[in-house]
């Protein structure tokens, strides 16, 4: 049997290299690249850049105060309020030609502390939240598994982040991202009162009988109108005469929120809740002044 010398591959390669993409096809490819870029940006958090820019400014001012060792310590898992710890305890990973799953599920654990009353309440709170997180995660993983046999591409990513914000509260944010053709992101927030060990609902922050839902909602509507007036590309479901039934009316008991590092309440809406889906996750920080009178 003769050896294949370089010449054979030269001949074959010459044939192989004949096809060249037409200019028109290249233009269409570039258009698709731009489309991909645009859709990728929509998937990521719209406000990310503003936060990052603000953070950069802050770090420039504060940098001298942060030594290397301080920075390192902050990367390890803090014990929150003396007894809560958040660990990632289950990972579901899957990858084949068309499907990718990357699931990191958080779980709240309790450090055996001195204060037994709070530890007891904290344990129950942790169990409840863990169960809720498990349910949400399972729902997404099942959806992913159900689509494994399908024709298309899909990817799913569940991740979490602790937003340890004030001495009094911390929030776990669970981010679920599902992509099949287009992307869909959904956030869930769980806030715990570090003084009582209890899960915080929005109503818990306000005086009994105060109409906090209306007051917060009116503030959100003001912000929506201001943002839409300032930027044509921003759109919320408000003052829409064509489809008045879509218009944002009022937050509910199920509306997500967390408390940011300034102690302000931030209201979060998932995709499509109060704006067209392309707006992605939408957040409104409620200024202190707007709710000062009704806070507990």
């Amino acid at each position, binding site marked *: *049997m*003769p*050896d*294949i010398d370089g010449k*054979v*591959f030269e*001949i*074959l*390669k010459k*044939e*192989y*290299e004949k*096809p*060249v*993409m*037409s200019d028109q*096809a290249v233009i*269409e*490819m570039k258009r*698709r*690249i731009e*489309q*991909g*870029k645009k*859709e*990728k940006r929509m998937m*990521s958090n719209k406000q*990310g*850049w503003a*936060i*990052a*820019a*603000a*953070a*950069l400014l*802050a770090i420039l001012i*504060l940098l001298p*105060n*942060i030594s290397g060792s301080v*920075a390192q310590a*902050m990367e390890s898992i*803090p014990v929150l309020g003396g007894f809560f710890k958040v660990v990632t305890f289950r990972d579901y990973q899957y990858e*084949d*030609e*068309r499907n990718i799953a990357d699931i990191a599920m958080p779980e709240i654990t309790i450090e055996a502390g001195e204060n037994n009353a709070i530890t007891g309440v904290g344990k129950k709170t942790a169990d409840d939240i863990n169960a809720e997180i498990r349910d949400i995660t399972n729902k997404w993983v099942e959806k992913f598994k159900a689509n494994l046999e399908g*024709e298309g591409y899909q*990817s799913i990513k569940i991740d979490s*982040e602790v*937003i*340890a*914000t*004030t*001495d*009094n509260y911390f929030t776990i944010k669970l981010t679920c991202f599902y992509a099949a053709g287009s992307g869909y992101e959904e956030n869930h927030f769980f806030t715990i009162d570090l003084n009582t060990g209890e899960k915080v609902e929005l109503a818990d*922050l306000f005086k009994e009988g105060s109409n906090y839902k209306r007051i917060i909602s009116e503030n959100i509507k003001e912000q929506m109108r201001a943002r839409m007036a300032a930027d044509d590309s921003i759109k919320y479901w408000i003052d829409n005469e064509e489809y008045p039934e879509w218009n944002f009316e009022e937050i509910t008991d199920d509306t997500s929120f967390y*408390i940011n*590092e300034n*102690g302000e309440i931030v209201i979060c809406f998932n995709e499509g809740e109060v704006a067209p889906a392309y707006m992605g996750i939408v957040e409104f920080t409620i200024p202190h002044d707007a709710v000062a009178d009704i*806070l*507990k």
Partner: protein
Amino acid sequence: MKLFTPSGGLIYGSILEEVKSFHRMKKQDGKEAIVEKTILNKYNSYFRMAMSFVHNEADAADIVQEGAYKAIKNSGSLHYVEYVETWVFRIMMNEIYRRLKSREIRSIDDEDFTDLQVVDNLENIDLMIALESMSDKDKAVIQLKYFEGFKLDEIAYILGENLNTVKSRLYRGLKKLRCELEDVEIKGG
């Protein structure tokens, strides 16, 4: 209730988090640029690979366009920028297989050999047919190695197979080409 008294230490912590996410985002943007550059440098390689399977310019262009769109859109999940070339190629190969699969379902037509008519002598036709008669993945291994210059472990990544499988595909493919050469020599001699 001390709702509005943030703790200093935790502020540093959250700022660090934000700076980290800023760097993450910067890195993301860098990845997108690298993926785009790679596509713009290599689109004819993808196109040729697609042509060798679908034998139809419109379909091949469609594969490259769809693959480019998916690569850019998912450029955030490129873990190691140094593997960008194999990463994009893998997406393109998946696109090719996807197309072949849906075509198989439709019908098996005879257009597959039409582009061989440009071959100008008999020996080349036999070699081309030998290459063409290999299984899709055997052919891909030969083409990626000898025409695109990838190493075997890179080919394994592109095809999503383990190295030993790729090696046996290579040997099987080379054997087929050798047999073809032998036939040509016997006929010719």
